[in-house]
């Protein structure tokens, strides 16, 4: 079984600053994928970034990057140059190759201070 843990219920950052959201996971699968999803208030959840576990290189999408530490089972999200539109709930999730269902963490509410 897979589990995902987000230990930061809330985080805040000043606009234009950098913030890192933490995530740890546990899985017995050898082939799996990790995701960060963003859920703005009253809007649908959207994918921020995806990491394939077999790839050592950390994924990057514009201002969003991850620090994937496979041995430590850690998958943190770094948001650079934070913008007001980044305010949302952020969920870390995992999926195995064989069973695509997403297993989510509890979420981190990110507030951007102007």
């Amino acid at each position, binding site marked *: 079984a897979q589990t995902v843990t987000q230990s930061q219920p809330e985080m805040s950052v000043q606009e234009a600053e950098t913030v890192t959201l933490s995530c740890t996971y546990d899985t017995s699968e050898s082939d799996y*994928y990790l995701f960060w999803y963003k859920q703005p208030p*009253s809007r649908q*959840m959207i994918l921020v970034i995806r990491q394939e576990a077999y790839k050592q290189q950390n994924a990057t999408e514009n201002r969003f990057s991850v620090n994937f530490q496979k041995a430590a089972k850690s998958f943190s999200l770094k948001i650079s140059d934070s913008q007001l539109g980044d305010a949302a709930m952020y969920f870390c999730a995992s999926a*195995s190759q064989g069973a695509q*269902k997403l297993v989510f963490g509890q979420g981190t509410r990110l507030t951007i201070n102007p």
Partner: protein
Amino acid sequence: EAEVAQSPRYKITEKSQAVAFWCDPISGHATLYWYRQILGQGPELLVQFQDESVVDDSQLPKDRFSAERLKGVDSTLKIQPAELGDSAMYLCASSFSTRGKNIQYFGAGTRLSVL
């Protein structure tokens, strides 16, 4: 841009009543998921369809919940009878296939309040 459509957006019902939620996935997406998200928590999978077949319903409370995707396109999730503990956001998602790397696209959800 194609989106996953869900209706209604909000539903208020009384305990013991029946409720139904509808989802229309992105065109061409064979895999459809229903998740339940209790306030302050991450979503949890209720049921997964591949075309019209159920792939995983291990977390679906089958005594009161049912789901169908008769023609392999849109889907309906039903609760009968509703209980107070069913108050939550019900999210539908779809993806092109069942491979783990495929991105799931989510609808805006149906927020259910059971009184």
